[in-house]
């Protein structure tokens, strides 16, 4: 009796002191959100196949309550999870099922898909309407700086004439970059120097980018950097170094379960052996 009273007292006090959400929401609404959060959690741990499963479950649950906003968010995440490991078939299937994709967020996602497929010119064209005015616009937020990064990256890879202007503006912003942004800047700087016919500087900058990415343990970025560094060594006629870097990249892609990139790397390695 006493124990029961004590337990009840504790519960009453806990409820009185609690700061939990007082407005009750139906479980059917909380459940897909919980799936989305689980998906985000595993996505951040680079388990994209598991993330795909959670987002699919979330999508089904959103469909079951006809939550259109939720469905769109789930599809957005599904595309990102599949894009991270280059599963283009799944990406296209989900992308085609989305009706309205005219806003900036979806345009950027589509551009990212094109970029991942290696269609750099089309990717740059896809964001053409949302480009920042680099001459006049003051960049305040991190989001604005990321926008500048994206357009510089796309322009550099597409070999667009604007790339130089974008790059110069990016260089001005360098002092306020985060470590991740610094890593990306070094990487883009390496590409810029390569295009300018300065392969030595390009190699040095790409190595610096790799070191920075390693400090962030960003697997996909490390793999990308290793592949790009291998390309630079290949251009320098050092196939052995390129091979070693590609093998390291292959191990990361294998961990990520990125079959598409694994196949591409195998082809590159075979070409180097021949």
């Amino acid at each position, binding site marked *: 009796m006493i124990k029961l009273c*004590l337990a009840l007292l504790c519960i009453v006090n806990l409820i009185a002191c*609690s700061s939990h959400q*007082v407005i009750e929401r139906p479980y059917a609404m909380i459940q897909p*959100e919980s799936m989305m959060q689980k998906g985000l959690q595993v996505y951040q741990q680079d388990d994209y196949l598991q993330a795909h499963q959670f987002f699919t479950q979330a999508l089904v649950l959103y469909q079951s309550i006809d939550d259109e906003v939720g469905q769109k968010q789930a599809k957005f995440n599904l595309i990102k999870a599949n894009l991270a490991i280059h599963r283009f078939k799944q990406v296209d299937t989900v992308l085609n099922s989305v009706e309205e994709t005219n806003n900036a967020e979806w345009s950027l996602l589509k551009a990212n898909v094109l970029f991942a497929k290696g269609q750099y010119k089309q990717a740059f064209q896809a964001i053409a309407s949302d480009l920042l005015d680099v001459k006049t616009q003051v960049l305040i937020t991190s989001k604005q700086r990321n926008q500048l990064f994206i357009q510089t*990256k796309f322009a550099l890879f597409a070999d667009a004439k604007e790339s130089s202007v974008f790059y110069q503006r990016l260089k001005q912003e360098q002092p306020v970059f985060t470590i991740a942004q610094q890593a990306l800047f070094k990487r883009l700087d390496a590409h810029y120097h390569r295009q300018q016919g300065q392969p030595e500087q390009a190699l040095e900058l790409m190595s610096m980018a790799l070191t920075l990415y390693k400090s962030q343990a960003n697997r996909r970025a490390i793999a990308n950097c290793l592949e790009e560094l291998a390309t630079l060594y290949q251009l320098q006629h050092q196939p052995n170094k390129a091979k070693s870097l590609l093998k390291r990249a292959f191990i990361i892609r294998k961990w990520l379960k990125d079959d598409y990139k694994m196949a591409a790397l195998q082809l590159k390695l075979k070409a180097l052996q021949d």
Partner: protein
Amino acid sequence: MTKKPNIHYIHYLSQTAKERLVGGFFILSLFIIAGLVGMKVKSSNIFDEVITYHTHMQTAQGISLETLVNISGIEAGKVSSIEITDDNSIHIQFFIYKRFEKLIRTDSKGVLSKLSLIGNSVIMITAGRSSLPLLPSGAEIIIDEPITTNDLMEGMLPVINDLDSIASYLSDIIAVIEPDSIEASTESIKTILADIEGMTAHISSGQGLVGKALYDTQQAEKVTESLNSTAASLAGVEQRVTEIEPLINSLTALADESGQLIIDMRASLKKIDAELEHLPEIINNAETLLQSTGETVQGVQKIWPLSTVMPQPSKVLVIDGDSLHD
């Protein structure tokens, strides 16, 4: 009629009403705590009058200052002190509440509960006959001691001895098998087989074994030699058979015991099988329990003061700015 908004009532209460509500909770908690303390004091008999008795024991197994004293199954007191006397016996002093005094008579005896062997001991005192005088405070009550672990071990000794004899019995069986004897038997059998092989060779040559044995003296000698060798081998085999007989008897006994063992094993397996049928249900229950526990833990994390130190789950549901480095 104005409809109230669909939010928790706390949001439309005034500051004074909120303070009164909190104050109400606080005062209610104080009252409940005071009531519980009062109940505890009453139930623990702190202020009850007691009478003290004592006893001497050789082994106070499981007795501590927390040990209860029962009279006719009613909790009537507690052990108050344990001391070791000069003659190495244990002096135990205990008290009973005054209201149970009339149950303790001069013929009252005590016994230590059998559960003392596994830790939970209770001194059980039998109520005396009402015709006899009351036992005065400070008197000694004789308490029977339960079996100790040593006694228990002594009881188990014959079982261990039986096991030992079974082991030596098995050892005898194995000892009967002599490698030399088996080797000798094998040699004899080998000789027989060689002789039979020779005889078969002669038959296959078309001369006919019986004719040769009758008319060919050389052959007859060979046959005689073979027969002598066979007789010697048979004698050896007979001797081995005589030697093996106790072994066969032992094996038969062993086979009988094995049969019983197999029956027991089958029964055990059936029981395990029956238990395994419940396994999926248990797993489902465990899963539900884990899920509920997870939800409870998540709920607790949202409660002050944990909510101030535990990171709360993000409300963001969309992957943001991640493909920048691809």
